[in-house]
């Protein structure tokens, strides 16, 4: 009898071992991913985490950061950016701008090649931009190409492809015609929707971007492995013109969504870069003096929308009162904890002005003052025929960090103004729907600039696509119009400074802080830098 008892046990153990073995047998060993340079051949392999499966690695269909980080290392636009944020030639060697700022002529470098060895020509740029604009492509970011003359018309089926303002006049020359003067157009040409695609490859195999075997790019690295939902790998592109400066042989991207897990992998040495960091870890690291901790600037602002179409938030004094009654420093230091900078305007630091930094030149556009806020609130309410604020809520999308900030604001309004606000969380998509429908009083929002220019933060134009506050001000509109009509830096920037002042004076939004970009890099990795509007860049990184 004893024998049979043990045979049952043995059987169960055998099943467990078999299950484990079945899995292990078919997969590669983990050595490649774990620790150090990883590879036994001594090649330099960087291990990072991309947070999520990329939706698409086709420049026209990519939608966000999960794609852009990989695309930025595998593709290259007409221009690229240095560590200091300076725009330098990428695939283009030089460019000329017509006096009216409408015609841009780019000359491509000689001998450019795709990762499959095909020659890269100006036609590939023309083809790619028109492909992204084609209605059938249904590209999310097609509107990034609306700067081109006839771009919007073609995308909305009102115009023809041949009328789109981009033309390859020869293999090396790309002539771009814009709808209106756009001084930051050069910056846009480093954005992924403006990357080229290999015309021949696209026409022969429209699904080329779905598989590492058929993926063709023109950047410093090329995609060589893509295990969906697991990992992907990029390797040095031998056909890249600047290949001698690329020191890494390969980069492995894990696809781990959980920030805590990614952080643990960094701690155990399985990752060389940890970004983004979990909020509480950021808090611990900001003041720790850890040499691996970096805190780059981020082109983004965290703010609350007021629904200016709802009483009493239609009243500027009420809005200002609420904005003046919170303590931003306390929020950034004790709640957000990522070394963020309190925002007393809407344009974050790091954007060049005509001279110097735009935000530094602006300074603080308002003050926090609880006593003054109380007075303003009383006056504002009286103007609206009210004695006290009616029931209202802060709508935020479900995320712990948003909740904590909303709670802090709730407490500050209670203490400083004697005002009660309820908190209401909703899924992100639902929050967006409600904002569009005007179904909110105050809602949490954030904005990451698309390009390095103050214009990307001028969102509150009457009926503007991003103007969820529903605010309208003629002076603001005309100042933006003025800024859009000129290429002259000083004139433009003066108009933009004024526009920001006008907006903050009326405060349709309540700025809270300017984001930062905290990340960790192992000390044996050098050459990683974080551009203001991108994830940490490791094109020129090295690993000892």
């Amino acid at each position, binding site marked *: *009898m004893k024998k049979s*008892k043990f045979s049952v046990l043995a059987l*169960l153990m055998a099943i*467990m071992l078999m*299950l*484990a*073995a*079945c*899995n*292990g047998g078919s*997969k590669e*060993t*983990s050595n490649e*991913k*774990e620790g150090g340079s990883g590879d036994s051949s001594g090649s330099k392999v960087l291990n990072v985490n991309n947070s999520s*499966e*990329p*939706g*698409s*690695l086709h420049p026209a*269909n990519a939608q966000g950061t999960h794609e852009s980080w990989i695309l930025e290392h595998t593709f290259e636009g007409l221009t690229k950016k240095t560590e200091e944020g300076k725009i330098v030639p990428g695939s283009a060697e030089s460019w000329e701008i017509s006096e009216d700022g409408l015609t841009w002529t780019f000359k491509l470098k000689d001998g450019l090649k795709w990762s499959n060895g095909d020659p890269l020509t100006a036609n590939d740029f023309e083809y790619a931009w028109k492909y992204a604009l084609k*209605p*059938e*492509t*249904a*590209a*999310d970011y*097609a*509107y990034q190409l*609306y700067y081109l003359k006839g771009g*919007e018309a073609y*995308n*909305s089926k009102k115009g023809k492809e041949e009328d789109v303002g981009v033309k390859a006049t020869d293999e090396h020359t790309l002539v771009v015609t814009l709808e209106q003067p756009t001084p930051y157009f050069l910056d846009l040409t480093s954005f992924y929707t403006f990357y080229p695609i290999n015309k021949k490859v696209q026409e022969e195999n429209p699904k080329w971007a*779905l598989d590492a075997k058929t993926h063709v790019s023109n950047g410093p690295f090329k995609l060589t492995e893509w*295990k*969906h*939902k*697991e990992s992907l790998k990029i390797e040095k592109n031998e056909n890249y013109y600047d290949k001698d400066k690329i020191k890494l042989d390969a980069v492995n991207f*894990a*696809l*781990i*969504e*959980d920030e*805590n*897990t990614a952080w*643990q992998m960094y701690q*155990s040495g*399985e990752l060389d870069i940890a970004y983004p960091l979990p909020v509480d870890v950021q808090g611990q690291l900001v003041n720790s003096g850890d040499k691996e901790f970096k805190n780059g600037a981020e082109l983004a602002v965290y703010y609350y929308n007021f629904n200016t179409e709802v009483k009493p938030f239609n009243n500027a004094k009420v809005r200002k009162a609420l904005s003046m009654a919170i303590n931003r420093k306390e929020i950034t230091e004790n709640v957000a904890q990522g070394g963020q900078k309190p925002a007393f305007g809407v344009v974050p630091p790091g954007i060049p002005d005509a001279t110097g930094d735009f935000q530094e030149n602006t300074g603080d556009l308002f003050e926090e003052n609880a006593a003054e806020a109380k007075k303003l609130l009383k006056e504002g309410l009286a103007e609206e025929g009210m004695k006290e604020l009616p029931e209202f809520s802060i709508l935020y999308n479900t995320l712990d960090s948003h909740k904590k900030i909303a709670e802090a604001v709730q407490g500050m309004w209670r203490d400083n103004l004697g005002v009660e606000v309820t908190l209401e969380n909703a*899924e992100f*998509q*639902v929050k*967006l*729907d*409600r904002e*569009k429908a005007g179904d909110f009083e105050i809602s949490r*929002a*954030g904005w990451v600039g698309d390009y390095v220019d103050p214009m990307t933060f001028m*969102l509150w134009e009457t009926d503007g*696509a*991003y103007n969820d506050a529903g605010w309208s001000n003629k002076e603001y509109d005309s100042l933006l119009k003025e800024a859009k009509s000129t290429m002259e830096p000083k004139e433009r920037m003066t108009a933009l400074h004024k526009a920001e002042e006008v907006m903050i004076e009326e405060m349709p939004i309540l700025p809270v802080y300017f984001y930062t970009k905290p990340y960790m890099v192992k000390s044996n990795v050098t050459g990683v830098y974080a551009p203001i509007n991108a994830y940490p860049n490791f094109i020129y990184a090295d690993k000892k």
Partner: protein
Amino acid sequence: MLRYTLNRFKWAIITLWAVITLTFIIMHTIPGNPFAKEGAMPPAVYENLQVHYGLDKPLLTQYGNYLLEVVQFDFGPSLKSSSISVNDYILKGFPVSLHLGAQALVIAIFFGLILGVVASLKRNKWPDYLSMIIAIVGISVPNFILATILINYFAIKWNIFPVATWATWQHTILPSIALSMMPLAFIARLMRTSMLEVMGQDYILTAKAKGLKRSGVIIKHAIRNALLPIITILGILTANIVTGSFIIERIFGIPGMGDMFVKGISNRDYPVILGSTIVYSAVLILLIFIVDIAYTLIDPRIKVTGEKK
């Protein structure tokens, strides 16, 4: 038996159809738009996307088209990710979730049964208390906390197992343990109760009186009969484990189906929501079906006459 099986199969299909229809209706009624972003999307871009994914057609047409596709096992594209279709998601993710679930289940059954049996045989002695403490911890400590503890010690401090991902068999150990604790505890408690009940039955006393060895009585008579309630809940437990590993999959970066479902919902990615709902429902229905059949085989008192009632 064949008639019974066919009848159950018919109802399984009807249930599945009802699930698809209800999910389809709910999905299009809840607020939220798959293409919504911060800031309004230019109307032309929005319209192009609607046309591209066939969302511009009347709902009834969309429903009809979808059913036609599902019959051909085509769950359509993902609205958020052109790199991977819903079929790819399922083909890639389901075996992984199944593997993780099966491994966790084997651990849970094996150790759960041992703990339950030991606890019942050593009632009110230290092995009983120890087993039940383990069971209480297993039930009350959420698996994501257990996962974090396991990672902290076994991966970071002692470096025995990797932190996350799903590359080798070593990667599967910690998530399987984390996932198995709750069902393990559940099985242990149920087995203990069941054993105690069975051990008090007359036929056990008779067997003992006949002079059979204690171990023989326990294994041949007691455990076998005490297993019945375990088998009853095994179907649901399996379904729970296979379909309920969202958090564990996320923490350990396992490319299973868990995140597909959760992200599908938060992104309002209709084909992903429908595809994963269908797969999960099919798994549940299948397991309940198997348990029903298994039940009739194990306990001869249960006859397959149920359908005539």
